[in-house]
């Protein structure tokens, strides 16, 4: 049996940064292969090379179905039967479901015309094959995220695929949807199609995969039979660290309550939310994508207003008209989308950090004192251990982890009472993550109240005093990590699937 894919010596360099270093990768027909690794390990880059989006650095050999290539174009890759389901789905929201499913067919077809009836037939056929149904004329933008996921899968399967890549396919799915997806995967392998799963949900990986290739920092750690792997072993391979995490075991409910939220609702975003955070306490919120976590955070930060319910800070009811009110009341929010919302990439580290506290760096009335600004900046750079050359360098020169520290420092400089951290480790290297959580624990130790939002269950589990599970806009249940197992929380979120 010849491998569907056999790559050797694949490297990829982006402007001096080596995203992939001499990777060998092989997938056999009909196998479920898992590509595992932490964020930023090079998984996505490898998929983009296989699907022809990126060209590898010279010296690589790409063998697909026994045929050798030096580089691949997306159309070539598709012709030999490579299908990809991207993590962000790469769908066209303003176009119909049918067109989204059939688009690859008519892009690569020689025909200059499209026949809308044929497009619908193609879409209908693949939907039937997967046992799903859609209103084919609906625009994709009107559909919920789980349906978009299925549309992306349908699209990948329209052509005659030999190998399908699924990039984090279950990240936004509920239990039954995940189950359905795994059924689809089994259908495919029964047809001798290879499926490559890219996931960091390890339990799922071990259940479904035959083999696991682990990447770390752009390098291949090894290929393992899934049956020989355990959760702990795999984690160790992926992170390179023997992590022996301990939960936060400290009951702070006797401390003064800093934030109290009573039955706040906002239509379509979150509903009937009540919880409180004591001084020095870290409360985690986790749940699937689209559970309403960020929407809730935005209301606490005054960006949107709850339609019902009350928010109390230090026992006093507050009603934020805008986030300016929230900031002056001592709420800080480190946004989930650091790249586009949290930091101004082309500006210097110094300017980014001092942005929230320019009024503290004034001299002679309302002119900015560079000296005062520098003092504030130097203080926080040292306090949080940001590794930077010169604070006048652009922030884009820093690594993800250090950028995140600057984003946090920027808000700490406002001297908040409540810090909201939304997905603080997205795009941050594994090694640097621990550094961020050290800061979190340190800040909590100094009496700051922290709301930690993340879809990485382990992050909130190991760093919070209490964890709230949110789904469909509601808080389902509260968990105290010191008194429950992480699997209990994971089961509640993902369901006991597989």
């Amino acid at each position, binding site marked *: 049996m010849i491998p569907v894919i056999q790559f050797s010596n694949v490297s990829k360099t982006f402007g001096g940064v080596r995203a992939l270093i001499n990777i060998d990768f092989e997938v056999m027909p009909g196998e479920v292969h898992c590509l595992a690794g932490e964020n930023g390990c090079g998984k996505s880059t490898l998929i983009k090379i296989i699907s022809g989006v990126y060209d590898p650095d010279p010296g690589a050999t790409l063998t697909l179905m026994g045929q050798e290539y030096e580089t691949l*174009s997306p159309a070539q890759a598709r012709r030999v039967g490579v299908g990809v389901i991207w993590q962000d789905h790469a769908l066209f929201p303003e176009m119909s479901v049918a067109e989204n499913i059939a688009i690859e067919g008519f892009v690569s077809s020689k025909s200059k015309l499209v026949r809308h009836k044929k497009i619908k037939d193609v879409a209908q056929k693949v939907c039937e094959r997967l046992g799903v149904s859609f209103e084919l004329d609906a625009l994709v933008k009107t559909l919920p995220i789980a349906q978009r996921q299925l549309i992306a899968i349908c699209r990948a399967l329209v052509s005659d695929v030999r190998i399908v890549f699924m990039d984090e396919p279950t990240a936004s799915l509920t239990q039954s949807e995940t189950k359905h997806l795994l059924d689809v995967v089994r259908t495919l392998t029964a047809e001798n199609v290879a499926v490559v799963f890219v996931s960091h949900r390890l339990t799922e990986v071990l259940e479904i995969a035959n083999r696991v290739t682990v990447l770390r920092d752009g390098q291949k750690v090894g290929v393992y039979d899934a049956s020989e792997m355990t959760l702990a072993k795999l984690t160790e391979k992926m992170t390179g660290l023997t992590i022996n995490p301990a939960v936060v075991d400290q009951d702070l409910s006797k401390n003064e309550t800093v934030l109290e939220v009573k039955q706040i609702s906002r239509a379509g975003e979150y509903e009937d939310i009540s919880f409180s955070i004591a001084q020095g306490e870290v409360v985690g919120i986790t749940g699937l994508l689209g559970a309403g976590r960020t929407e809730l955070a935005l209301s606490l930060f005054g960006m949107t207003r709850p339609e019902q319910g009350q928010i109390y800070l230090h026992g006093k009811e507050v009603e934020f008209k805008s986030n300016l009110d929230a900031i002056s009341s001592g709420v800080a929010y480190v946004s989930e989308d650091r790249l586009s919302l949290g930091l101004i990439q082309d500006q210097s580290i110094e300017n980014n950090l001092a942005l929230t506290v320019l009024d503290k760096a004034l001299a002679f009335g309302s002119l900015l004192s560079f000296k005062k600004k520098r003092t504030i900046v130097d203080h926080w750079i040292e306090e949080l251990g940001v590794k930077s050359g010169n604070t006048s360098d652009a922030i884009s020169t820093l690594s993800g982890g250090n950028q995140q520290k600057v984003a946090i420092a920027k808000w700490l400089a406002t001297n908040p009472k409540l810090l909201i951290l939304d997905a603080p480790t997205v795009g941050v290297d594994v090694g640097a993550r621990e550094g961020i959580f050290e800061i979190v624990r340190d800040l909590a130790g100094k009496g700051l109240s922290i709301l930690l939002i993340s879809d990485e269950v382990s992050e909130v589990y190991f760093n919070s005093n209490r964890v709230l599970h949110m789904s469909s806009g509601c808080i389902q249940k509260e968990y105290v990590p010191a008194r429950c197992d992480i699997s209990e929380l994971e089961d509640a979120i993902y369901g006991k699937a597989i």
Partner: protein
Amino acid sequence: MEKLFKTHPIEAWLLIIIVATSAVLSVASTQYLTLVNAFDLLNSISINVIFAVGLLVVLISGGIDISFAVAASVVQYVAFYVLSYLGGGNWFIGFIVAGGLGIVLGAINAGLIHYFRIISIVVTIATFNIFFGLLMFLTRGVYLYDLPDWWTNRIIVFEHEMANGTWAELTLPAVVMFGAILATWLLITYSSIGRQIYAFGDNPEGARRIGINIVAVQFIAYGWMGMMAGIAGLMQAHFVQEIVPNALIGRELDVLAAVVLGGATLGGGRGTVLGCVLGVLLMAIIQNGLNLLGVTPFAFKAIVGVIILLAITLSNVSFVELRAHLRMQKGQ
């Protein structure tokens, strides 16, 4: 109608507003609802519609073009000299030359946008200035009156004598307009590249990943715009029987406003030929009506500005949500 509302709310609203405005105008002015006026309206909007369907394709692709109106003036001048070189020419050669020159100018925009990775608004503002500056410099601003006869003779394609002895006439530009509408509709609805233009405008990164030919998308979009601009230039010279270098300047913003009113967005991926035509039509009806009512033309621009703001604001608000919101506030 209900189905149209669901799938194409903007077009449905424009239709309703056009019908309502027409009803008001026909009560206010007896001249409004006549075949003569209707044909006059069609003749007069034809050039803007030809521009508009071209611009629509560029907007769908996620770009914008500011340079098309002066490009049309450039085409008029160059076509004039090329046609005299060819011994006068005729309509057939005229269309080929004007369309071809337009495509070349559009391709310049596309090339700059694609190969130098400059955003379209910057490129087309620059080419707007280059085209216009060169035109004024090289022609020294002279008007051309000695156009060939075939170019300036009025062609009436359909006429009908009214009871009062006046003639309702449909002229060549109106017919060319229908051709442009039909061709653009076919392009963006039934051609593979047309659907790829939608896809690229909607999600450029997604389009790249599924292997859409981005060079082709850009060149076809701006080339189509250029071709329509060339044809519109040909028609405008035919209409006014002379070529004036600054005759079309300023038209780009009127057309852009009409196309956006018709539901296309600057973000790309959205817009229909129907909406685009209705947008131009509504603007023309309002102008026509204000003229018939004897309102000063100076008020026109201000009124158009207000309409655009209202339309864009309303299209950002879902009516269902708005109603629910109002109801809830009342309830409290």
